[in-house]
């Protein structure tokens, strides 16, 4: 798509300043994808506002001229959510990066949405507080992106995902009006739109500020690593822990391939002979409580005969363990230059069977698949690695991806645990929802955005052809047939 016409660019420049409207071919090119490199679309311009007023002014210009706009945080999203697939502009919020207030008494923080997740934690730490949702990308992704995707993370098993921690937010509606939703407290009067807006992937407008809840940093923490010679045993062990009613702060799974990648990237010395590794963290207010749950956990684990049990002895060791876990996906870059990551959530009792199926699918299509996931939630993350320059491999990768999705949906799983539907999974939506359900969702979207300008074509299958395409499990992958050549 071509650059916007000069007269409109000029209006944007007046709104945000000369330096903060990007329109050269090179500047536009680098915004053609997010963390998901399968999908590409070059925006017509990028606008970088600094304040809510500027966002509102920019959105008003879009509204007047019917220009679609797509919000973007850090562009670490994994479902192509931040792409201007329908043309129009990207409104990148990363310059809105002020932490406005941390209130240690009511344990809340008021932030602009461009604040990076890890920065909020850094600033809250001196007060003994933390912001619980911790996506693996937290050192880079923005709170706005987290809100839009309802991001989860390693510690969300115990503490809940983003929506559980947002008390209020400021939304610039698609006509430029500014709306406050929610409050400073945990209670809301009237209709509660908060839960609707969190997770709406920028399709209802642009979130500019948020009041978030902070929690006291747990004092007593125990982190350990269990290695297994048998993947199925590791999966059964997960189910047993959950069944017993133990809620660890985190319960993560890594397969042998991931362990290898992580060992290379971080020199953490995970047992590389193991078939599967579980990382488990327990926390508690009292040391006695911690000891009791640790004992219970160890007794649940014992029958599954882990080949090794390592306990983090110091805070540094613990930090290193999680750093390695959080860097796992990126560490795959040591093998192949790109990954296609699914994000299904399945009922936990099916973990062992589905994981076995995924491994078989990988072998059948001769593709590398790394499995590292939030085991406690049943949120799988099969990473199919690929080289975009290798067409033959691409075809195998897409086919494998589709079969994995099938396997998950068959056991009653859902499409996305935390990465959102975006453009990448929108074609699959009609697998899960009836046309009536989808029409109702579209109706809600129309209420907020009658002109369909805010991140159009995301989440909901857009064109009538989608419904037909995605039932076909041929190589004509919906991503490609629907939009033509994306790559």
């Amino acid at each position, binding site marked *: 798509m071509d650059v916007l016409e000069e007269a409109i660019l000029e209006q944007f420049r007046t709104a945000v300043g000369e330096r903060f409207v990007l329109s050269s071919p090179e500047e536009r090119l680098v*915004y053609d994808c997010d963390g998901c490199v399968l999908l590409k679309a070059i925006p017509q311009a990028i606008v970088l506002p600094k304040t809510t007023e500027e966002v509102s002014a920019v959105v008003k210009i879009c509204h007047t001229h019917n220009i679609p706009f797509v919000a973007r945080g*850090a562009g670490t999203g994994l479902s192509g959510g931040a792409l201007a697939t329908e043309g129009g502009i990207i409104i990148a919020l990363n310059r809105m990066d002020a932490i406005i207030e941390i209130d240690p008494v009511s344990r809340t923080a008021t932030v602009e949405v461009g604040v990076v997740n890890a920065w909020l934690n850094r600033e809250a730490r001196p007060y003994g507080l933390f912001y619980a949702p911790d996506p693996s990308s937290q050192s880079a992704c923005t709170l706005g992106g987290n809100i839009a995707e309802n991001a989860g993370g390693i510690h969300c098993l115990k503490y809940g995902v983003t929506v559980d921690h947002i008390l209020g937010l400021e939304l610039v509606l698609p006509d430029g009006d500014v709306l406050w939703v929610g409050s400073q407290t945990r209670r809301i009067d009237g209709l509660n739109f908060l839960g609707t807006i969190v997770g709406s992937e920028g399709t209802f407008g642009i979130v500019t500020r948020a009041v978030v809840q902070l929690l006291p940093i747990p004092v007593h923490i125990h982190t350990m690593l269990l290695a297994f010679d048998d993947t199925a045993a590791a999966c059964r062990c997960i189910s047993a822990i959950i069944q017993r009613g133990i809620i660890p702060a985190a319960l993560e799974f890594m397969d042998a391939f991931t362990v290898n990648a992580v060992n290379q990237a971080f020199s953490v010395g995970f047992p590389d002979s193991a078939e599967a590794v579980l990382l488990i963290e327990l926390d508690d207010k009292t040391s006695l409580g911690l000891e009791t749950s640790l004992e219970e956990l160890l007794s649940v684990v014992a029958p599954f005969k882990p080949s090794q049990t390592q306990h983090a002895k110091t805070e540094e060791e613990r930090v290193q363990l999680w750093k390695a876990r959080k860097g796992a996906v990126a560490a795959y870059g040591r093998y192949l230059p790109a990954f296609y990551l699914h994000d299904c959530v399945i009922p936990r009792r099916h973990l062992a069977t589905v994981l076995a199926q995924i491994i078989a699918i990988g072998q059948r299509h001769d593709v590398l698949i790394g499995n590292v996931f939030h085991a406690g939630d049943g949120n799988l993350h099969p990473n199919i690695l690929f080289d975009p320059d290798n067409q033959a491999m691409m075809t195998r990768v897409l086919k494998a991806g589709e079969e994995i999705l099938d396997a998950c949906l068959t056991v009653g799983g859902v499409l996305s645990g935390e990465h959102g539907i975006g453009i990448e999974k929108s074609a699959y939506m009609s697998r899960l929802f009836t046309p009536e359900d989808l029409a109702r969702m579209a109706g809600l979207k129309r209420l907020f955005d009658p002109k369909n300008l805010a991140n159009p074509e995301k989440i909901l299958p857009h064109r009538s052809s989608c419904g037909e395409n995605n039932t076909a499990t041929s190589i004509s992958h919906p991503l490609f047939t629907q939009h033509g050549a994306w790559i």
Partner: protein
Amino acid sequence: MTTDINAENLADSPFDLLKACIHCGMCLSTCPTYRVTGSEAESPRGRLYLMKHLDMKHRGAESGTQTNERITSATGILPHLDNCLGCLSCETACPSGVQYGELLFKTRKDWVSHPRTFWYPLQRWVKQLIFSHVLTHRKWLVSGRHFYKLLQRFGVFSWLKRLTWARSLPWVGPALALAPVIPHRYKPLHPGLSFGNTSGERVALMLGCVMDAVYNHVHWATIQVLVENGYYVYIPEQTCCGALAHHAGEEAIARDLAQQNLVSILHSNPDWIVLNSAGCGSTMKEISKQFAGDTVFEEKAKHFSEKVVDIMVLLTKKPLRPMKKRLSMTVVYHAACHLQHAQKVRLEPEAVLRQIPGIDLIPLSEPELCCGSAGIYNLEHPEISADIMALKRLDIIKTQADVLVSGNPGCLLQFAAGLRPQTTEEKPIAILHPIELLAEAYGYRGYLPQ
């Protein structure tokens, strides 16, 4: 497993190094230029993406087939690469192990003769002249220093600073804004001088040119502390380390300088080759890469690189002799990018500083952030540089420390200008090289401001 999947295959040539970038974005928030411009094109991920396109265009052109029909052009891409500080903070952050520095410097080298702007050829010529003829002549630098002091004495700089037209000149304006007040003491050091007991381990001290011209006393502090700790220190025959040329992509000049240093310093048979300038140190440490595959120099260069060590790292090799004086003060340590990111020296400097009696080290919130100086970046890109300094400044001022220390002349110059108090209430902060604090603690005088 498949046969076409092989990590080794990927790393064959520098440009396949590009494939290591999986576009995850984990490096974004640590990139100073991205932070202040907000633009993905000024981020590591964006720059790698642009390098990839440049490479595809280049290969397409070479083989006669235009593989890439994209809308971009080299003239459009290169300024974004020129805007990079080369601080390598992104390398530290990248979990995929992308060798960003390799890629950047290789691309700059390949494209150094491509004119980006009308003035580029002239600018390049001036830089080449400086890199190969001014920085390499100690006499010129020393005379330059004296001339500068003379101008300073007669208030020429403060007078120039009042002229709007002078302030708006490229290079001159930013240089005026920096114009450091050069300390008065200058005790020349020249090849042949040696200090300490000949029975100690042999330390060849590399002077660097900026460090020697502006902060010559830092060398004396280095010598004093090393001699206190039983080393034998001498000044070998040497020339500029070539870092500036290397970073600008002027590889021929850089290589020539590196070769001169290699031959003359190794000839003096050192146990250690010590530097107190992070920028020069990282270039010297990487000499082995520059000569990889060279039939004559490969082995020598490897040998050389192994002996190169930053002063603060050398001081952690053996227990320090006890220090006599207490320095009651609060100190912040600014880790120069060329130490923490390029040389991966992270813990040693603070470990040494903590041993100084009486010192209270205050941590920064964002210790990985660059100061915006980056060689001559602050002269070439004054606006971005000033914005980065503003970020850094906030973090430092917040600590209310008495002293800021940093092991790189570029950082010291940048801070001398950037940390000047902006209001009368603001507490002035002294800016020193860490070794100066050690020299004071060993009882030498005159390093601390009155």
